[in-house]
């Protein structure tokens, strides 16, 4: 139908009706935010991690400590399972659930998986605290740990959400057959990382609470041009492939890994930490264009909620993710505060 035929109004004359998933899948205008390339972000993340002794040592020592702990508890292997030890939730949930299933009786195995969200949350929060400081050009200090501890509720929340994603993947994948099921096995963890991958960085860098960090992470993921979904998919695909290779190479029931096994598994876990840093760098680069939480409108005396007006922060459409000076200001204020 030709434009202006008279049978329909031009699209600009009436607001488009919002569909069910319009908030997620609707049109978003391109952003002018300076968002680094995926390759650039990964290199920056990898350099931040691999040039900082603390960020290399902490994952290595954590892996050794957990390995010794589970071996003392009677874990027979395989060591290859630990290739996914420090992966991002919800990808890491597979590790969290598989390990207790081998180690513990059936009735408490799932409970063991739930309990593991706490140590994993602690590790994620502290590591992210260190990464953010390193990316800010500072050295790792007690302040890094303090800001990490502040993000602990958010990190635990992300881990709990990860279990939800994992359970859904576990239920949905077999029902969808081998083809689509495999896509779901990769797609759903990627979706989890896409939506909540920035949450811990937000909690660390901006001192926000769990709910605010999670919701802002979703908004950050949806910033046009952020390419968070390709990053999440790429990470899950690469991790999946490496995990299969490492798991098949070191699938023996053997609790005394060789030097080669340690090297492979340690490198794999350093890679996971590099991805934490990649996400952190990426978020910090465009944090100023991500809207803060929508403020709750105050109720008037009649108890009615006044309608939001255009121009207020909360009224911004999903596509209105233009550069936000106030956000940038608050970010820079945080940065300055941290520098003090």
């Amino acid at each position, binding site marked *: 139908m030709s434009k202006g035929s008279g049978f329909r109004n031009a699209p600009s004359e009436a607001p488009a009706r919002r569909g069910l998933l319009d908030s997620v899948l609707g049109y978003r205008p391109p952003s002018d935010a300076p968002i*680094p390339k995926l390759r650039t972000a990964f290199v920056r993340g990898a*350099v931040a991690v691999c040039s900082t002794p603390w960020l290399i040592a902490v994952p290595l020592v954590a892996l050794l400590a957990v390995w010794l702990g589970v071996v003392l508890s009677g874990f027979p292997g395989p060591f290859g399972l630990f290739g996914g030890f420090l992966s991002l939730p919800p990808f890491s949930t597979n590790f969290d659930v598989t390990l207790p299933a081998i180690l513990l009786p059936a009735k408490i195995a*799932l409970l063991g998986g739930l309990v593991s969200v706490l140590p994993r949350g602690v590790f994620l929060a502290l590591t992210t605290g260190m990464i953010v400081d390193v990316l800010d050009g500072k050295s790792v200090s007690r302040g890094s740990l303090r800001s990490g501890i502040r993000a602990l509720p958010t990190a635990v929340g992300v881990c709990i959400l990860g279990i939800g994603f994992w359970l859904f993947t576990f239920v949905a994948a077999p029902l969808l057959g081998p083809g689509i099921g495999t896509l779901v096995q990769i797609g759903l963890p990627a979706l989890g990382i896409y939506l909540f991958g920035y949450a811990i960085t937000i909690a660390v860098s901006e001192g926000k609470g769990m709910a605010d960090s999670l919701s802002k992470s979703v908004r950050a993921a949806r910033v046009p041009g952020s390419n968070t979904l390709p990053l999440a998919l790429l990470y899950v695909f690469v991790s999946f492939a490496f995990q299969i290779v490492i798991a098949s190479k070191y699938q023996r029931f053997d*609790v005394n890994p060789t*030097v080669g096994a340690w090297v492979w598994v340690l*490198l794999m876990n*350093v890679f996971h930490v590099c991805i934490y840093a990649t996400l952190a760098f990426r978020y*910090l680069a465009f944090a100023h264009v991500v809207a803060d939480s929508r403020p709750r409108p105050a109720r008037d005396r009649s108890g009615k909620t006044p309608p939001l007006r255009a121009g207020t922060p909360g009224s911004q459409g999903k596509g209105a993710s233009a550069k936000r000076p106030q956000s940038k200001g608050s970010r820079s204020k945080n940065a300055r505060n941290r520098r003090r």
Partner: protein
Amino acid sequence: MAVGGIGFMAVPAVGQAVVPTGWAQYQGGPTHPGSVATGPTAPYAVDDVTRFGDLPGGSSLSLGLSAPVVLDETAVVVGPTFIQAVGLGDGGTDWTMPRLFGPSVPAAIEGTDSTSARAHPVVVYTEGWGNGPGNPTSSATPTTSVRPGGGSASASAVPSATAAPRSESASPSDGIPASTGVASDVMARSLVDGSKEWDSPVQLKATSRTGVTIDGAVAFVGDIRGNVYAIDTTDGTVRWTVNVGGFLESAIALADGHLIVSVDAYANGSTARVVSLTEGTGEVDWHYDSGHSGYLTAPAIADGRVFFGLTSLGAVASVPSLVAVDLQGGSVAWESHLTTAVTPATSPTVAGSHVFLEDASGNVVAVEGSTGHLDWTFALNSLSAQGATIVIGNQVLVPTDRGTIVVIDATSGHQIFVSADAGGPLHFPAPVGTDRVLGPRGGPSPGLANFSHDPNAGALTDIVSPTTPSYGRILGNFAIAAVVICAALLLLFRPLAKRMGPAFLVDEDGALEATDDGEDA
């Protein structure tokens, strides 16, 4: 960790009294102890291999060769299309009879003693696929009704008129007319010459994969639709049948008048169970319900307890365990967690005060029979889809898919010997007399390998399981790897970090700006 007194107490349990000598039923007798107090011990040499022709299905679980049963100097194995008696030495007999194409499950030998009606031993075996392998997820509805004195096989006992394809060459039971319908039955032959003992085979309602268990003059078999049959071995009459539901694919055990049946359940909503039936009437005594769908090993009975491996198919993962229940009443004595699944083809082995079991990944465990305490684990790291361990004296013999028999000391849990490769995967070893062990070989060239005690076959070793931690090795190897990684990464990335500069610059407003100019489109 000590397994006290195994050497003294490794006496075959109750069932051995029924069959005079040998290894006449699956795992040595109706209780499936899987052990003998004395016999050939390591080191072993591979003496010779009795070769069979190529078998349809190769070494797959339901085809290949069955676990052998042995009486004196004669071993009997069941192949997909034949039953063969192999003479092992002086006095042994050799014959081969065709058999209806069907699962290769163990036969049983009814021996002779002073109370026997016959003067010669008899081999009882199952044959035929019936309507096919069956769908394990479509379990029959369990009933506990008993039909005593059902008489011999009759058309009324056949639930379906659909006949499985049969070829003349694979139709040995010439007593079955081609129009009979379901071709799955039980047959008996003389061990001496292979001649038929019954006028006609006993028709079953579905394919049998349990093999045969004999007590006195009664043979017990189960089928994949949950039917259990008690058959008089003197004339082939059916004494009773009962349906316990589920999918029966493990050997039935028997002791003190209790018939113990492992009931597998693969369908959603159904549960894997162990059912105890009264031997004389088939009435249900008790049942143990796992609460989950799943599958079980064949049970083994000793010292008033029933031992079996259970793999529960839980919502999150399959959960394997070794369970002990009381023979009288079925109450759970203990449950011991295992590492990986256990298959229906295997069975726990009971020797002295301990129970041994190998899981599908080749982890052999020794558990105290009274408490369920795990004494040791030895990880062979060899897949074991079928096969069962046996215990001879104080040595645990584990057949492997690599064609070897690994021998583990029952007390220490250390590997003391590995035999030479017999040329194909080994499944169910069986001791013959005091000087040989028979190892049925699967794979592309199936056969029966004879292992004999030979001090020159190799020295005994003392190798600990790879699952036993050596903290010095763990820390040493980690330290080397960690130093290598730290050094390599820091040497590579620290100069790079200096060259690249800070990740962010602070602009005039104090805001951070990424220093890299590359941006996504």
